[in-house]
């Protein structure tokens, strides 16, 4: 272990632009990765950051209108489910969003579901459901629904669809609390803007919001940690005098492909999730791999086995039911594997000692 740590420190101390990727880790792991990236002038990115980054950019441009999972579950009278991802991410999502018992909610409407740009599939019993899709693409149907909600004229050759869209628009205007549920990784930015604009239109007369699914691999927790640490989300570089965020320039995959990054710290240490490695990972780029799973790394790479957060050690991670970071007890009580935070902290100390020597 000690020699692996020393080799990792040597490898990283020589790097010009190390990229910290994967980042499937808990908040303590993210804190340690950010600290080391700051020390080394590196870049941080998360392996499931596509959606987070898109949502972050849209938010920075125009704001956002989130609702917590609990508020949606208890108080939404109309849930608009956009795309396939939300149910792929959580097969029980609709059961959770339509529980048997709720807190007092606004209005007298019966609760309804509108599925947009996806098949209706299995829905909770007793919940009136409309499917809006047909042969149109998801951006098209979202745009149609947005127009119908604003009572703007729109054209579609599919008369049945047109009728459904008009009726859904009316329902949204008459809702006491309409919520649009989506995964930002599935929606392009213009679609995200359209959804937000629709919410902003609705709130002039009623209550409306969005429920954006959090990224897998504690993506939201890592992102929040990055923001409170340096004021910026993931895909941030610490190579200059001040931190710089760029969704394109500081994507781990691109940095590895272009050869701009000359070292990789790959972190994959979360129970129940596996970070999809970049296509160029471990191919000719010196790497330090912290993983709780078996890894096929290069011969000269440094691989350090760590505990899986939540399974092997207590962890603070983003928990969708509370729409925030929570603390989870380890499922296995007797693990003595080191944590990501331990390992990165020690590597940082070794680099400091090397610098001082």
């Amino acid at each position, binding site marked *: 272990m000690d020699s692996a740590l020393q080799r990792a420190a040597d490898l990283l101390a020589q790097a010009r632009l190390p990229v910290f990727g994967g980042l499937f880790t808990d908040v303590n792991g993210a804190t340690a990765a950010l600290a080391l990236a700051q020390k080394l002038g590196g870049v941080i990115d998360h392996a499931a950051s596509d959606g987070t980054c898109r949502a972050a950019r849209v938010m920075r441009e125009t704001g956002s209108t989130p609702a*917590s999972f609990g508020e949606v579950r208890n108080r939404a009278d109309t849930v608009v489910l956009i795309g396939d991802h939300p149910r792929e991410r959580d097969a029980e999502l609709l059961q959770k969003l339509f529980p048997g018992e709720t807190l007092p909610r606004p209005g007298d409407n019966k609760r309804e579901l509108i599925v947009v740009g996806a098949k209706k599939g299995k829905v909770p019993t007793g919940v009136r459901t409309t499917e809006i899709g047909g042969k149109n693409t998801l951006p098209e149907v979202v745009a149609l629904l947005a127009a119908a909600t604003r009572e703007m004229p729109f054209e579609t050759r599919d008369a049945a669809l047109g009728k459904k869209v008009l009726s859904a628009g009316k329902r949204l205007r008459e809702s006491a609390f309409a919520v649009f549920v989506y995964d930002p990784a599935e929606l392009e930015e213009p679609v995200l803007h359209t959804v937000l604009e629709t919410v902003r239109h609705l709130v002039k007369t009623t209550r409306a919001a969005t429920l954006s699914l959090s990224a897998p691999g504690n993506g939201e927790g890592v992102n929040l940690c990055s923001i409170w*640490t340096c004021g910026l989300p993931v895909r941030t570089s610490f190579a200059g005098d001040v931190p710089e965020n760029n969704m394109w320039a500081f994507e781990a995959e691109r940095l590895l492909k272009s050869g701009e990054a000359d070292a990789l710290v790959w972190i994959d240490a979360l129970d129940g999730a596996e970070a999809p490695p970049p296509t160029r990972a471990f191919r000719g780029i010196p790497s330090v791999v912290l993983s709780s799973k078996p890894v096929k790394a290069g011969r000269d790479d440094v691989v350090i086995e760590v505990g899986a957060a939540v399974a092997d050690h*207590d962890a*603070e991670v983003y928990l969708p039911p509370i729409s925030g970071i929570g*603390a989870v007890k380890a499922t296995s009580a007797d693990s003595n594997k080191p944590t990501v935070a331990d390992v990165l902290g020690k590597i940082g100390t070794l680099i400091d000692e090397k610098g001082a020597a």
Partner: protein
Amino acid sequence: MLIQLKGGRVIDPAHNRDAVGDIYLENGRIVEKPDGREPDEVHDVSSKIVMAGAIDVHSHIAGTNVTLGRQLMPELPLIAAAEGQPILPSTAQWGAYATGIRYAEMGYTTVIEPAMIPTHAIQAHKEMASIPIIDVAGLVVLGNDDYTLNLLRKGNVKSDELKDYVAWTLAHSKALGLKVINAGGSEAFKFNARTFDLDEEVPEYGVTSRGIVEAMQQVVADLGVPHPPHVHTNNLGIAGNVETAVATLEATQGHPIHLAHIQFYGYGKEGDKGFSSGAPALMEAINKHKNATVDVGQVLFGQTVTISGDVLRQFDGRRAANPKKWVINQAEGNGTGVVPYNYKKKSFVNALQWAIGLEIFLLAEDLWRVLFSTDHPNGALFTRYPEIFHLLMDRDERARWFDSLPEASRQVSGLAGISRELTLSELAIITRAAPAKVLGMTDRGHLAPGAVADVAVYTEQKNKTKMFAAADLVFKSGKVVVRKGNVVNISWGRCFHVDPGFDRQIEKRVHSFYDTYYGADPRWFGVTETFSDRPDRFATIRCAR
């Protein structure tokens, strides 16, 4: 190690001290001058001003809401720096680390985050633990949450269940005290109310805002929590709201209450523009209600971002967003509104807000009850405190600012008629001694033996902005952390909280509530002693009962 601060002018209003003398520090505490022992380290501070480390009673420095603000406005430090505000043009300046550094450089050693969300206490504490040097504490927000409202609906306001629930929440989130933000207003917003007054009823629950605040005051008193309920009243920011603030004070029935950032409730509706200073009426009420303390929430001109759990108010305020983007986050309890704002010197309303805040300080009969704050970042960034100290201590500086305000604002403001200048002792009251007293943090805010060795040393200058922007020396728990305005040593502070007892039955009830309605386990958001790997991170402030 015995440290001597030798020959400074010691300003310690808690002990009526303003005289040249020595201060001794040992083992992190202030000590008596020891007999027959020479100090191991002497700092010659002759001709300098020596005060206790400053304490900020209300500054949004951590947690979900603040980080939502950072997400919306990463460019805030860049815009502020370009305007000439004292902040470096880097997004990181708004991060946790820079917060501790900058506070310490100004001589602050304790800061209170006033709006911890119960279900997001873990994030608030993670962020606070990333802030170096200063000690911290959080106030936890209740009063718009369905659990509380459901208890109050049942009409058993005085039953022990509410007391147990509040005690459990304080302990579970490791909070120093209770915050109530627009009691019932955020919940009413969820039922599509867009205004909410003191005597309006929360839909479905039937309890009034007044009823919620009264119940919370009773509970906090019964629990013996030193800090009274920290209340953000209804109708913030609205012309004529001084009536609401006065009515809230009248309703206190002698129970202690702390009203936050009262400048934002100091508005009358007189004059052609229907907006006037309510400061005289407000201060008359505050001067009269001896159980009430307040912090001011002073406004300064320039770019900032407003972050508040008063989601109803922020929703209304979204129209004034500058830059034009905003966040309304609808969540358990209060939710959050984030609205960027630029206070303009040329604006009639903004200029008057600026003047009203100063009037409030300067009309206070008892500064022990009128504490300093800007409601950072809502009124102004905390990095600008020295400018406000200057305005309070120097009427020429005040006049210089006042003369550049719009004619219409000057005509209706009483500020020009006030010649009062705060003394160093008075400044030490509103930034040290009084916050410590109101928070129940008896070991700080003063310089008597036994106090924690948090000390700030300044060079006296006519220009108070310069004087307070950079302390000569700052000791945190007896160690030098700042020299000549720069941090020279990174240390990590402690987090203070109360731990009132409660009947363990409440845990089962709360567990069942979260399980049924949220599919969540309250243990997920409980802050435990093992939360931090720093062994002495948490410290308990004793409750009276």
